[in-house]
């Protein structure tokens, strides 16, 4: 649940980028950081393993200015995608307000996407939440692989695998090129903020 400070009229919204390892979660945040530097007053915090893997999490805070008299602050997090870091993933999910599920479009990553979504559901349940309660946006990342001759999953297959029950907004994207990265973020902020609206008195 978002942190709302009635005294300082400040709302902190936590959005977590979830998904399988090497799916492009950190690349999303790096792109956003480079594009939105003026709105991001602090450095992006990122802790990586050698070889470009996220070891702990990335953290990117940004301000949206004042809406209805409240200063809206967005905090973007990624989780480590590697299977073995589940304790960290679970911890990062604590108090999550909105989710972006970054799925990898490469054909050979199909199982990892499905497993990661199941893992998300399991970890949310530890906080008494489920996928249907938390605003979510799917991002089918790495669509550019097709142009390099690497087979990608058809979007219909990804929708059927991941989103056939949730029916959440979904975008084809290439985080590396920045395609639909901002659109994904706008969508999740919009949907998340709407669910918080009634709390802002």
């Amino acid at each position, binding site marked *: 649940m978002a942190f709302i400070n009635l005294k300082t009229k400040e709302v902190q919204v936590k959005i977590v980028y979830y998904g399988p390892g090497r799916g492009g979660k950190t690349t999303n945040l790096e792109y956003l950081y480079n*594009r*939105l530097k*003026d*709105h991001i007053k602090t450095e992006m915090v990122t802790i990586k393993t*050698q*070889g*470009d893997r996220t070891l702990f999490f990335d953290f990117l805070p940004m301000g*949206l*200015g004042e*809406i*209805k008299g409240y200063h809206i602050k967005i905090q973007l997090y990624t989780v480590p995608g590697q299977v073995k870091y589940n304790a960290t993933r679970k911890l990062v999910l604590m108090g999550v307000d909105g989710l972006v599920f970054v799925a990898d479009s490469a054909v050979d990553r199909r199982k990892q996407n499905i497993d990661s979504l199941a893992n998300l559901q399991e970890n949310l349940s530890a906080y008494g939440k489920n996928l249907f309660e938390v605003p979510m946006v799917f991002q089918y990342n790495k669509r*550019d692989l097709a*142009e*390099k*001759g*690497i087979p990608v999953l058809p979007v219909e297959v990804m929708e059927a695998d991941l989103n056939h029950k949730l029916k959440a907004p979904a975008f084809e994207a*290439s985080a*590396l*090129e*920045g*395609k*639909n*990265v*901002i*659109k994904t*973020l*706008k969508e999740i*902020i*919009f949907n998340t*903020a*709407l669910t918080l*609206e*009634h709390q*802002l008195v």
Partner: protein
Amino acid sequence: MDANSDASFRDTLKNRLDEVFQEESSDIQGGNKEDESVKASHPLDGLKSAVLSLEWEITQENVHRFIKETKDCLKRYEGDKVFSTFFQVLLALGKYVHKSMKNAHPATGALIKSTFENVTAVIDTGLGEEEKRKLLNKSLAAFRQFKASVLAKKRKAAPEASETAVPEKTIKTVLMELGNRIESELEKMKAEIADIKRKLD
């Protein structure tokens, strides 16, 4: 919250998001619709990432990835002799690193990087056949020189090893001799202790 304020919140939020993100999009890429300004992907992006990972640290995972990416490129460019030769050089270097791992020649990383940069230049700049060959020859010369220095290092290390190496037979003899000596010392000590005991009695 009544319907009017609902709509007002929604509109304010939507406008704010458009304001924040649209402004940034036009600043950086000169266009207003971020998802429409798609950069062309580079065919060697995967290999580039593998080269950089390997340069960062030689791990099994990074080496495997590098070899896989190089093989993918070999397949993709199999009709072009110049490109194929570049990728064969990279593959040979990958296999060498795989075999030697952390003991690989310190110049390996630099050679992989320079070969990769040359093949990228050939692909990117659309050079003529003669210029392509020039760059290829440069990479081949560097590769041959590297090979020679690896062999020279091996040759240099080999005689040193034979000079200092002790034949197995000698080791066994020395150990036996040492064992016998310890045994006889023990016998002497036992005899001395028995003698002292006798005197005390």
